[in-house]
């Protein structure tokens, strides 16, 4: 009989990735990655397109299963105890998938209910998250009428609506105009300390401005994990590793 999962100590890593690989046929999208993410920090996954960032995030959120290795979220294994692990994560995929036929409030309420909130709690959570991400005046708008910037706010809103411990953002500034990029950066920085944020980017400057630590990936392999406070020149480090 298997033992119930043991919760992680409060000061331990909130995310633990141990020897994780993902193979598609004989091609390794992610190869033997081991990484820990601390509670309350902003971790940037940096790497060129095709380096395995999205695959790693998808395994963490439970969308993909690892070929080998183990991932746990707050002590809950993402495969054996996947529902508990998923409840602790809010996820914004790169493509900002939204139900275009719904109104913003309808969509946020649906996502809140889907993640276990009851009707009254969902209404309160939608009102709260709408204020947080700046959607207060767009709640009644059909999603199909929104600009890219507002669609991104809705996508972040749905990820936060159930008040998760961890926010996972895949290329959060892709396709945004300069003002929206700055707003998104400030928003992510504002979450530091309250929530653990894991974001991926292929833009070095983005990670440098937002993250506390950076994990550099190349061809599915984790090359380095560095605190940005101890890395005065991220560009030089990146070039030396790749």
């Amino acid at each position, binding site marked *: 009989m298997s033992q119930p999962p043991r919760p992680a100590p409060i000061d331990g890593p909130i995310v633990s990735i141990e020897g994780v690989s993902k193979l598609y046929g004989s091609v390794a999208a992610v190869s033997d990655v081991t990484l820990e993410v601390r509670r309350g920090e902003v971790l940037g996954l940096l790497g060129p397109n095709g380096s395995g960032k999205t695959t790693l995030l998808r395994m963490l959120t439970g969308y993909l*299963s690892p070929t080998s290795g183990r991932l746990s979220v707050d002590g809950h294994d993402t495969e054996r105890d996947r529902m508990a692990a998923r409840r602790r994560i809010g996820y914004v995929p790169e493509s900002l998938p939204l139900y275009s036929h719904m109104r913003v409030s309808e969509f946020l309420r649906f996502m809140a209910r889907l993640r276990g909130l009851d009707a009254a709690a969902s209404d309160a959570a939608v009102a709260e998250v709408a204020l947080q991400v700046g959607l207060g005046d767009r709640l009644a708008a059909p999603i199909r009428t929104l600009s890219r910037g507002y669609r991104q706010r809705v996508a972040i809103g749905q990820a936060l609506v159930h008040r998760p411990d961890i926010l996972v953002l895949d290329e959060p500034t892709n396709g945004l105009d300069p003002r929206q990029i700055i707003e998104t950066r400030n928003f992510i920085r504002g979450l530091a300390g309250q929530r653990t944020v894991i974001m991926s980017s292929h833009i070095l400057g983005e990670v440098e401005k937002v993250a506390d630590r950076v994990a550099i990936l190349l061809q599915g392999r984790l090359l380095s994990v560095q605190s940005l406070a101890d890395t005065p020149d991220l560009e030089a480090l990146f070039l030396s590793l790749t």
Partner: protein
Amino acid sequence: MRALRVLLRKELHATFTSPIAYAVAAVFLLVTGYTFSLTLFFTKVANLTYIFHQMYVLLILLVPVLTMRAFAEERRADTLELLLTAPVGEVWIVLAKFLAALVLVTCLLAASGAYAVILGLYGQPDWTPIYGGYLALFLLSCLLVAIGTLASSLTENQVVAATCSLGACLMLWFADSASYMVPAPLDALVIGLSLIGHFTTFVSGSLFMSDAGYYLTLTMLALFLTTRVVTDR
């Protein structure tokens, strides 16, 4: 069950706000209404057997159109990623899509119940084949919707999903024809797979558990396979 309720509400909203649903409903009711009026006018017999056989063909042709969006659209729009990273089991996602499409088809069958009501008002029909016919159509709908949902889970292209689903349903319809090419005792198995063979007994007013079991078993098999496809990532 709470997750199923939430998902089902979302699926019903998507189904009943889609123009596809209304196009399919219009075609179904127009064609069956036309045939009902014509048959009654010429034969003057209070009988729905013709209509049931026509509905059988129409459901085989139209249900793949209703179910093609189920998973294919979610895959195309990447929204499946939202559902599959939420703390809900894949089986509830599959069941919600299955039930939403089944509710729509059941509404179509219920609307066609007007023909039976008209026969009851102006004639003295034998009700046993009518009840049997509707039961058969409901069980057939379960199976067709389950096959359509399975086909939709295999692709992100709706047309491919509809085509595969239609092909599978047609193959099941004509399965008994292949029995001539299969040696005994396998021929009995092939005949047993035939959709029409299990349908006509119901419409004639003979209700057999084996016929109901055929539809329910294949429906559960298709739903099980759909769940496997969605889970296997």
